[in-house]
């Protein structure tokens, strides 16, 4: 690891100033569970590391009056996963945060870091996309909002300028009779990287058919992959065998995976179909349990 300066600003403005002053050589620090590994392995270097955890606006999970959520970018995953309101409204997001690493890792790791590290296998990202989450980005010129699926542009790259930072995620209030789920496929039960991940959110109509569906897959393309075709095959239908079969097919068709040490392309494609079905069944059962 090459030496760097460590800064811990206490306001968003000070953090942006530090990023600007570094001329693009600074790195933001959330939990550091990706960043420190990369710096140690000398995958990249940083002249300055700007800690985001001392900025009060970046911490905490807040429900607004309208039932929507604001999750501070630097909130540790263990806090996200344990939040009762979020777990009730968006269980898929909570369970994805709860899958990242171990207890120790989750006590440090953040959703912003998970997204901005830009790994195609990041667990929380498909769940956030399925929830329709928006990333709030601050920069020298103020704030802008990006759909989560627009934040990453490829493995290791994001749409953020060097002097921008993610400050929060905003999640809408779920419609009545909605449920969500995130499942991942790993050889080990824990402490593993998804070979495939699938986040899904479903809303049921009064007649038990599906009124709305959002699905996204992880680890099967250079970035987390929204699968709009899922809505196409599910909306207006019950989640019966035929619908599940169709969902399996659109999930597989959407995949553009690589073969690497973590899994073959064929295995990933097969897994995407399986997880899509299983996640849909889980999400639907959660939706049905809603009043």
């Amino acid at each position: 690891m090459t030496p760097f300066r460590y800064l811990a600003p206490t306001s968003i403005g000070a953090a942006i100033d530090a990023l600007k002053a570094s001329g693009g050589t600074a790195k933001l620090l959330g939990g550091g569970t990706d960043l420190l590994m990369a710096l140690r392995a000398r995958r990249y270097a940083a002249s300055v590391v700007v800690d985001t955890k001392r900025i009060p606006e970046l911490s905490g999970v807040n429900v607004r009056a309208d039932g929507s959520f604001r999750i501070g970018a630097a909130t540790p995953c263990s806090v996200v996963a344990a939040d009762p309101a979020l777990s009730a409204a968006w269980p898929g997001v909570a369970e994805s945060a709860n899958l990242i690493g171990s207890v120790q890792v989750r006590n440090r790791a953040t959703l912003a870091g998970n997204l901005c590290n830009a790994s195609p296998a990041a667990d929380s990202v498909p769940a956030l996309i399925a929830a329709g989450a928006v990333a709030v980005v601050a920069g020298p010129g103020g704030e802008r909002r990006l759909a989560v699926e627009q934040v990453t542009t490829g493995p290791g790259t994001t749409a953020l300028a060097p002097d921008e930072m993610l400050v929060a995620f905003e999640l809408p209030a779920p419609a009545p009779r909605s449920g969500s789920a995130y499942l991942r496929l790993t050889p080990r039960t824990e402490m593993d990287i998804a070979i495939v991940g699938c986040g899904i959110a479903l809303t049921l109509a009064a007649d038990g058919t599906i009124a709305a569906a959002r699905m996204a897959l992880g680890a099967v393309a250079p970035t987390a992959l929204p699968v709009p075709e899922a809505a196409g095959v599910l909306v207006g239908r019950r989640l019966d065998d035929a619908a599940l079969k169709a969902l399996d097919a659109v999930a597989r068709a959407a995949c553009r995976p690589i073969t690497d040490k973590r899994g073959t392309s064929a295995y990933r494609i097969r897994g995407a179909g399986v997880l899509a079905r299983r996640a849909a069944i889980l999400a639907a059962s959660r939706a049905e349990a809603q009043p």
Partner: protein
Amino acid sequence: MTFLGGQTGQRVVGTRPIRPDGVDKVTGRAIYGADARLPNMLEGRIKRSPHPHARILRIDASRALALEGVKAVVTSDDFVDLPAQEVAAGDGSMDFRSLSLNLMARGKVLYEGHPVAAVAATTGQIAEEALDLIDVEYEALPHVIDIEAAMASGAPVLHDDLFTAGVTPRPEKPSNVAKRIVFAQGDVVAGFAEADVVAEGRYTTEPVHQGYIEPHACVASWNADGQSLIISSSQGAFMVRAYTAKLLGLEIADIRSVPAELGGGFGGKTTVYLEPVALALSRRAGRPVRLVMSREEVFRASGPTSGSVAEVKLGARRDGTIVAAELVFKLQAGAFPGSPVALSGMCALAMYDIPNVLITGYDVVSNRPKVAAYRAPGAPIGSFGTESTMDELARKLGMDPLELREKNGAREGTRTAYGVVHRDIGFLETVRAAKEHPHYRAPLGPNQGRGVAAGFWFNIGGESSAAVNINEDGTASVISPNPDVGGSRASLGMIAAEVLGLPAEKVRTVVGDTASVPYSDMTGGSRVTFSIGTCMVGAAEKVVEQLKQRAAMLWGISPDAVEWKDGAAVPAGPNAGGFEPLPLAEIAAKAGATGGPIGATYSTKVQGAGAGFGVHICDAEVDRETGQVRIVRYTAVQDVGRAIHPSYVEGQIQGGVAQGIGWALNEEYIYGPDGKLQNPGFLDYRVPVASDLPMIEAVMVEVPNPRAPFGLRGVGETPIVPPTPAIANAIRAAIGKRLCSLPMSPPKVVEALDGAGG
């Protein structure tokens, strides 16, 4: 926990005192190799080859040496250019030339990660920078990773002085096949002619790493008078001393080797990678040097065990009598000869009484890190193919798989294919205990299958020592010369306590350094509790003799008239005199007045190790859509002779099974076409995590080994032998398909299922 058999009459042996090393380990106070610090210490780093196979044209360290803070650079020039010389080591043998060349490449690099130079600097940061400033010019050579590709004619040859041993006439050309071994008994052609049923298969396994938590680490100090101190974590301080002396051309008496707490070894620390390098750096720098491997270095350059190909053929009569067996093993040795192929061959069938056997083995080098011992080296490789084939044979015969094993089981006097005749073994008792275990008849859930497998490990003795010292207050300090890998401090202290008649907590065991206790072979082969225990009994008995003499002196009677009972001297009979028992503490308090300190050492070459047999029952559940395998229940039955500290014995059994489950399901080395390892870390080299494992039930059968203290047998290695075939057999039962290639990872299970049209 379950005991079957069992003995009584002992007060300490067989109980479960609190482990003596536990608190320090869980509170972070234990001093491991990387924790050692000496004044003015430098930090070392090793420069490693980026090529799997290349000629070294030039090494130029001048830019590194010019960097502020760099104090020394060493290359192969700093080590003795040794001739080939094979010596016994642990479970097998080793060659000093290979050891030296593996430690620091000379002329050629043979695997990615092969050390080419090392640097010492005032900080780790500077040492790391200096690595980039050591200029090495290579001429890349074609490489070979796969074992059968390495055996093929036309393969890139690693060593042009390597001619296959064990074939006549001696080959004219060098090759990557270092050795061919054969074990034969009876006549296999005639044997198979007698067979009504034949089962056969081809099996492959991948190299797997020992996976110890603590990376290799040491501190070495070359003192101004030419004497040296080494503090390191290894499986033998005497081994470190001897190997370092040899590689650097030093006298053994000039090195003091101090063992640090050991954070796991599993055989992987029965050799040196760092100590001679650190000492060579210290010799140049005139200051102590610390070397600590990163996890990545551990994976790239310290020993896994071999990957393998096995061809297995078994023939039986209709009634289940096995009449012939023919096995071929090809084992990867890594970059230098020395795979455990002979041990694979010996252990594969040692559980059975088979009249006609032919076992052939090949030791094959390729551009991978040199293999090192791993828990029962070679035996799990032997058992995967044979015990999978045994399962197929049982299916073809329509016979219960445990009954097949019982029917053919080795017993008193059975002659093994490698010539040794079994004595005082407990294999049949172990099979029967497995058959009678409720697990064997428990109902299975959907998508679940049950498999069984047996395994064997020799266990060894060897040159050994121990010291017992009585303290002034009546406690005892005992010294083991062997680093404690699995709880030997507890069991050795208990053995001494038993003989002395003291409670376990009045005896403290330390692992001594090479200056504090006589020589001992290293920790390996499940030998320590047996061998050092034998010496501990010897030393404690000598101490008891002294205690009796001191009591006799205090009482003014003949030493022959004193007996030792429950930790006190007592008169041998009414004629000896009417003395009250004289407890050890009272004799110790008066030691100064009766002749001085009381203590003894005992050294011998220990023989008569009792073989270990295990029979495992495994239930596996297969997710037919994803190919994921979950081990839902596991029972490991083992003949342990006598469990000195049962909790540690259970721990050994459970640990062996846990490693076997990793080997079976997910652990593997992944190489790209560039010959570079792609998964040098615990994220992608998947050892099981706690939630991957069921509670593993250890069933201890106690068939005493009459040549060991309290009847004990080594227990540490046997439990890793049966798991891979037990799991393969369970998967076979669950999905109707046999997996013949480890690891049985989800993609392979899916492939097997799809092959079935699933």
